[in-house]
């Protein structure tokens, strides 16, 4: 019986996202056998030390010229080939833009079931792996079983703790023997977005604005609070639809689903679709002038008042606390 877990992760210039270490922490806990990490591209070899420290027994760095640019079909073929050479019962992918593109492709090639965006993983009584994953954008959670011989999971970032366990991280030389000329869909350019905005799905704190902010230029008030907190900026759907902020800010069932430690809902009434998208937040803070707004029912803390007075005062208080710390 296969006993290992293969953790597939993206890296940029020798750095992996925290979710890579989160996956390794879960894999170590669940795999009776070896935990193997697999990553791609220029700088992949530099990730080995960190991947070992956080739980990889061995690391495959596919840093040959074929893997310089991401290709969903090419990389999926490479992962499938690596899987055939390993004794693995399961594969883990990050449930980020990269992993959500790649994982189903790999699952299709391996004829394996995939549970996407899992928030909890466990060993079942029947000895197989099981998972819990949000459905309806977090309005409910599904406990799922995967019945194919191999199991594939993608894990939602920012949920699992990481553990420094100092495993070997031995380099495992493996060449899938693929020719980049056979790769069909290839990334030719990466466009970084405006002003280094923190990514919502990975943010620890989010300050989010809704119709109550009244005008696009008023988002400055929220920006200042976000700046004081080191938070990412988000929005409700109506203000993104109005074009006050880019679509990438939109949080909710048809936008981003987020799971920060603290979510500040400012001038957001709390439509059911928005509440679904923020239900994974540890703390929700609502600031709204309407005491009857549904957002207060979902919140841990609420301030009923004029956001244009409360938010600047809060930013000041936060700065004072941080200065003392």
């Amino acid at each position, binding site marked *: 019986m296969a006993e290992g877990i293969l953790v597939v992760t993206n890296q940029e210039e020798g750095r992996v996202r925290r979710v890579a270490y989160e996956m390794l922490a879960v894999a170590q806990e669940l795999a009776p056998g070896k935990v193997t990490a697999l990553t791609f591209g220029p700088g992949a070899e530099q990730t080995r030390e960190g991947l070992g420290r956080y739980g990889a027994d061995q690391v495959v760095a596919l840093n040959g010229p074929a893997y310089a640019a991401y290709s969903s079909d090419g990389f*999926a073929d490479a992962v499938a080939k690596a899987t055939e050479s390993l004794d693995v019962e399961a594969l883990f992918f990050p449930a*980020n*833009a990269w992993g*959500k593109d790649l994982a*189903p*492709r790999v699952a*299709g*090639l391996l004829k394996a079931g*995939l*549970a*996407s965006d899992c928030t909890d993983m466990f060993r079942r009584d029947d000895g197989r792996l099981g998972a819990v*994953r*949000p*459905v309806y*954008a*977090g*309005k*409910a959670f*599904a*406990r*799922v079983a*995967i*019945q194919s011989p191999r199991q594939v999971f993608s894990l939602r970032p920012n949920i699992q703790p990481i553990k420094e366990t100092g495993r070997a991280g031995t380099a495992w030389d493996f060449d899938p023997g693929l020719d980049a000329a056979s790769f*069909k*869909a*290839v*990334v*030719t*350019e*990466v*466009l*970084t*977005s405006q002003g*280094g905005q*923190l990514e919502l799905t990975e943010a620890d*704190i989010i300050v989010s604005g809704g119709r109550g902010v009244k005008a696009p230029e008023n988002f400055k008030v929220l920006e200042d609070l976000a700046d004081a907190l080191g938070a990412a900026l988000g929005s409700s759907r109506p203000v993104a639809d109005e074009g006050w902020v880019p679509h*990438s800010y*939109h949080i909710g*069932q048809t*936008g981003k*689903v987020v799971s920060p*430690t603290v979510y500040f809902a400012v001038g957001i009434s709390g439509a*059911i*679709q928005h509440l679904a998208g923020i239900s994974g937040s*540890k703390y929700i*803070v609502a600031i709204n002038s309407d*005491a009857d707004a549904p957002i*207060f029912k979902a919140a841990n*803390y*609420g*301030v*009923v008042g*004029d956001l244009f*007075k409360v*938010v600047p*005062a*809060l930013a*000041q*208080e936060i700065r004072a*606390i941080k200065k003392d710390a």
Partner: protein
Amino acid sequence: MKILVLVKQVPDTATKIRLNPGDAAIQTDGIKWVINPYDEFAIEEGLRLKEKHGGEVVVVSMGPARVEEAIRQALAMGADRAVHIVKDAVGDSQVAARALARVCQDEGYDLIVTGKQAVDDDQAQVGPLVAVELRLPQVTVVLKLEVDPDARKIRAERELEGASEIVELPMPAVVTAQRGLNEPRYPTLPNIMKAKKKEVKSVPLESLGIDTEPWVVVEELTLPPERPAARILTGEPEEAARELARLLHEEAKVI
């Protein structure tokens, strides 16, 4: 250019989810069913490509009899005809992908478009799985799409975390749509009337000769835990702000 659009019917996003303890599916009585919002972007993109390059837009959908309503809606937006894979049993993404891919194969295609995910199960798998089944390249979560039918090439911008990337790929291919790709049109009254006469081919799932055994099985659904009642602060904004900052710092210990 022949464009296939894969469409799923899902509960309206305003739906409040109701469950009984131990249930593996939501209670569906009284639910309003709609086209998956991301599939609306896919339909719209298919129609725009047809308007620009000529050809045909065929909708492929799967599910019980109620799905015909979503299909008629897509036809009213302007799709030419549809295939309805009639299926009542519970499946998973792989079963759906196998069935859809089989119909795509029978239809023939230059391009297959669908939403980046369905807002019910949120698996975000069917697009890529169909691509694998048909040995096609894919580009997912697409914000901008340029198709050159003569050169048989696609150039797409797809969303990343706080960034985006340009993907180039040959046709035919599978493309999944993200919000921002376009603004879906509303069906006009004459088009709603016309849609009633458009062809909807009904295909029983069993007739496709595929394995219909799901690999991913939902064993139980639960509702998220209720949050404790909120601490509501009122009064002068400065005082409320100070008290909120104190609570976040000392009680929640998150700042």
